[in-house]
């Protein structure tokens, strides 16, 4: 029960006997220079055991999205192995596992499948080539006379299983190039494949960061500032140290950690600390005041994100002008597994066990605390990625907040420590989806079509001050704050467009949150388009289709969702439907929500989704991600809201920061459009964004109340 991950690895290694192909991480991939090797080193990504087991090492963390299965499918497709023998492991932190598109080892941006599509298939093809050559050598025949299928190399009547060939194969020089299968020859890709991590996740055996245990490990609970901007002044640990089981109390960067034998003692000890905090300068953020300021700022244009035509003339010359303001609050990710991180320091080395989306950054930040350069950190800091009990962006912090804090605590305490956050710590701990206000002025022509569109966005930048600022922000415009707007398909034929952005800097840590900027841009954009449709007296679907004539993929998604939802026939009495379509992470999702109002509350009965994510690898996984994204988005539609008073978050746990539960859950139908030659898109996030406008538009259709603030509240 108390196996550590290291023990587990050791056991695995010994139980699959001596012929396990040694796994080593080539350290040269990046250090050698900008020219990437033509093929990924197969031995870093794949292990074939004497027992025919095929172990795929994942450069992406499994946090529910299904990479544990999807990436393995890519390898297995080309390897032609026996799927029942395939298993996965998280890769260690090393340069060879850097994200093919983003350059650091990380999981996010709904990118695992499309970014790894070539690399993981090449790994499979490379290994298969080597296995065939090994068999051919043994039989003294030409490799061309051999073929591979079902985990065996076959030549006439002879066959050898991969397990029997693995050792010889890995001694061969890898091929310089491999050819990948034509889509028509795929056996696994495109089929419904069940998850590989199910057996351990239904038996309680799966090890999350929270589950790391080893004999001398202690648990720490940390007192952090009660308000953003507050500073630790002084603390008295006398009472905390009297709690049975508490062993040490140590300061952190801006807090106090109580180290104890187990969580419960650490928690009681933390609660018994007497701490003086210096209140935030200027009193801290107050939500009503802050939102009033945001609405105020929205009255004037900010930094220009997109401009075309003469916006003033366009608005003046328009037949009708609509003006509306949309608003969304701060949100916590609240992953089901509260944050935690285990650190063991040995001299100048650190070993870290955690569920993280950001291995490279964590490694660097942890190394820096121990005095290492980023290069040295790669040698000195080992990261064991555990299963993530949800991520949604929270486990990808550019500051590595929960990892760096644990390193500081372990260092100060002088013992291995698992820092565990309570749910309250999580809700109070920052790194929120920022609040935003959108002010839109839309000028319509005599047919009700937009001819001028002035769109001002106000909200914190999630990349300001982070290492990602250079990559994602230009000329004062954080591209993530306006994504989904500047490239809106609705504005392509609009003559005059201006999208501008104000990025105020209140002292609140903010971060990407499943589907990032699209969480608010889709709500504002698709809400306003719906308003325009109604102003034009048009059917919301027909109005959109007319504007999207040049956008066949958007139009097809809309049409399919509408068709499957029965758009052309009236909804049951007391219900209404709303529609929205949004492109994000290279995928297009259209959703139709059917709603009613029961006892003054909005009830969503069904959501019909049409998804175009290009080539569909695993329809079962796509369906799951769409269902999950809709549920995640629906929590923000119906409930999610954090407010501040004096810089303090006023919510603390699921009783006052409610999320969608079984009784809220609509029926969700997912229809996948097999993109014909369309480039592959992401699927972990894109279905999150359209749900807010789909529901709000349905509520309007039902009640004539245009709700422009999330969470939706009927008047």
């Amino acid at each position: 029960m108390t196996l550590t991950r290291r023990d587990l690895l050791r056991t695995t290694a010994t139980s699959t006997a001596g012929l396990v192909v040694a796994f080593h991480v080539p350290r040269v991939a990046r250090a050698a220079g900008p020219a990437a090797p033509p093929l990924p080193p197969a031995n870093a990504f794949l292990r074939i055991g004497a027992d025919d087991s095929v172990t795929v090492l994942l450069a992406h963390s499994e946090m529910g999205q299904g990479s544990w299965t999807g990436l393995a499918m890519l390898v297995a497709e080309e390897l032609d192995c026996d799927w029942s023998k395939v298993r996965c492991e998280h890769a260690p932190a090393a340069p060879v596992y850097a994200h093919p598109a983003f350059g650091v080892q990380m999981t996010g941006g709904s990118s695992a499948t499309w970014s790894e599509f070539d690399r993981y298939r090449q790994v499979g093809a490379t290994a298969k080539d080597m296995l065939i050559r090994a068999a051919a050598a043994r039989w003294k025949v030409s490799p061309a006379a051999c073929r591979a299928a079902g985990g065996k190399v076959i030549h006439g009547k002879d066959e050898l299983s991969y397990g029997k060939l693995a050792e010889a194969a890995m001694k061969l020089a890898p091929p310089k190039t491999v050819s990948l299968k034509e889509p028509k020859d795929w056996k696994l890709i495109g089929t419904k494949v069940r998850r590989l991590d199910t057996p351990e996740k239904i038996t309680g055996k799966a090890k999350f960061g929270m589950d790391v245990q080893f004999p001398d490990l202690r648990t720490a609970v940390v007192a952090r500032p009660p308000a953003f901007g507050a500073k630790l002044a002084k603390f008295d640990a006398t009472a905390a140290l009297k709690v049975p089981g508490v062993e040490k109390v140590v300061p952190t960067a801006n807090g106090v950690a109580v180290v104890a034998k187990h969580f419960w003692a650490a928690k009681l000890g933390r609660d018994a600390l007497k701490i003086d905090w210096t209140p935030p300068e200027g009193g801290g953020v107050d939500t009503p005041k802050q939102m009033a300021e945001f609405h105020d700022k929205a009255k004037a244009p900010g930094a220009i994100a997109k401009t075309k035509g003469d916006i003033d003339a366009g608005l003046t010359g328009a037949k009708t002008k609509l003006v509306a303001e949309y608003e969304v609050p701060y949100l916590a990710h609240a992953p089901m597994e509260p944050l935690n991180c285990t650190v063991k320091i040995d001299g100048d080395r650190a070993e870290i066990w955690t569920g993280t989306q950001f291995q490279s950054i964590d490694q660097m930040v942890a190394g820096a605390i121990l005095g290492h350069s980023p290069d040295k950190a790669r040698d000195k800091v080992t990261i064991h990625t555990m299963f993530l009990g949800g991520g949604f962006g929270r486990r990808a912090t550019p500051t590595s907040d929960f990892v760096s804090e644990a390193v500081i605590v372990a260092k100060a305490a002088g013992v291995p420590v698992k820092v565990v956050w309570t749910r309250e710590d999580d809700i109070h701990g920052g790194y929120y989806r920022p609040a935003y206000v959108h002010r839109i002025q839309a000028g319509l022509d005599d047919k009700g079509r937009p001819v001028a569109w002035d769109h001002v966005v106000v909200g914190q930048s999630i990349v300001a001050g982070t290492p990602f600022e250079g990559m994602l922000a230009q000329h004062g415009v954080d591209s993530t704050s306006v994504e989904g707007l500047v490239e809106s398909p609705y504005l392509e034929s609009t003559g005059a467009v201006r999208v501008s952005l104000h990025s105020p800097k209140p002292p609140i840590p903010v971060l990407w949150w499943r589907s990032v900027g699209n969480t608010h841009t889709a709500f504002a954009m698709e809400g306003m388009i719906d308003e325009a449709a109604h102003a034009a007296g048009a059917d919301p679907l027909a109005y959109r289709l007319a504007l999207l004539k040049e956008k066949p993929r958007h139009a097809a998604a809309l049409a399919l969702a509408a068709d499957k939802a029965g758009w052309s026939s009236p909804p049951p009495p007391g219900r209404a439907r709303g529609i929205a379509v949004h492109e994000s992470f290279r995928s297009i999702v259209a959703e139709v929500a059917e709603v009613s109002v029961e006892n003054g509350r909005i009830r969503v009965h069904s959501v019909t989704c049409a998804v175009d994510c290009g080539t569909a690898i695993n329809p079962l996984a796509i369906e799951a991600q769409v269902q999950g994204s809709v549920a995640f988005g629906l929590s923000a539609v119906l409930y999610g809201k954090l407010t501040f008073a004096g810089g303090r978050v006023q919510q603390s746990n699921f009783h006052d920061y409610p999320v969608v539960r079984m009784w809220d859950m609509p029926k969700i139908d997912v229809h996948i459009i097999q993109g014909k030659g369309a480039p592959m898109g992401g699927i972990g996030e894109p279905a999150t964004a359209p749900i807010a406008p789909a529901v709000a538009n349905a509520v309007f259709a039902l009640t004539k109340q245009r709700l422009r603030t999330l969470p939706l509240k009927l008047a």
Partner: protein
Amino acid sequence: MKLDINGTVREVEAPPEMPLLWVIRDLLGFTGTKFGCGMAQCGACTVHLDGQPVRSCVTPVSTVGTRKVRTIEGLSPDGSHPVQRAWAEADVVQCGYCQSGQIMTTVALLEQNPSPSDTDIDAALSGNICRCGTYVRIREAVHLAARLSHGGGK
């Protein structure tokens, strides 16, 4: 004190008010039962006491007495319980963190109500949060588990 857990009586030394959850996890090493909220809001910590589902995060260990504690580890050694089989068949899990609690709640539900309706499922399972939003498939899996149990699949 003594704790009858998954069919074995274990001796533990714990303060009486310590929640059963932390005794199970930190003192006995059964990590399948999860911590999600600590205040009976999320159901991640659901275990059975004499077959009744309880929130172990708010159950002081001293109140357990001689009642039999069953955790996810006590359900089956290999995932062969009908509810687990249904979960696998319906491909329910995502991150998986809530699923021990979902499964333990479902097992208790089916023991009391072998053929629950959607409304029964909503009532029984709305105490179990899933942030990954696996609810649609959970609902399918509960119905499937009911059928598997009827078929003498235990």
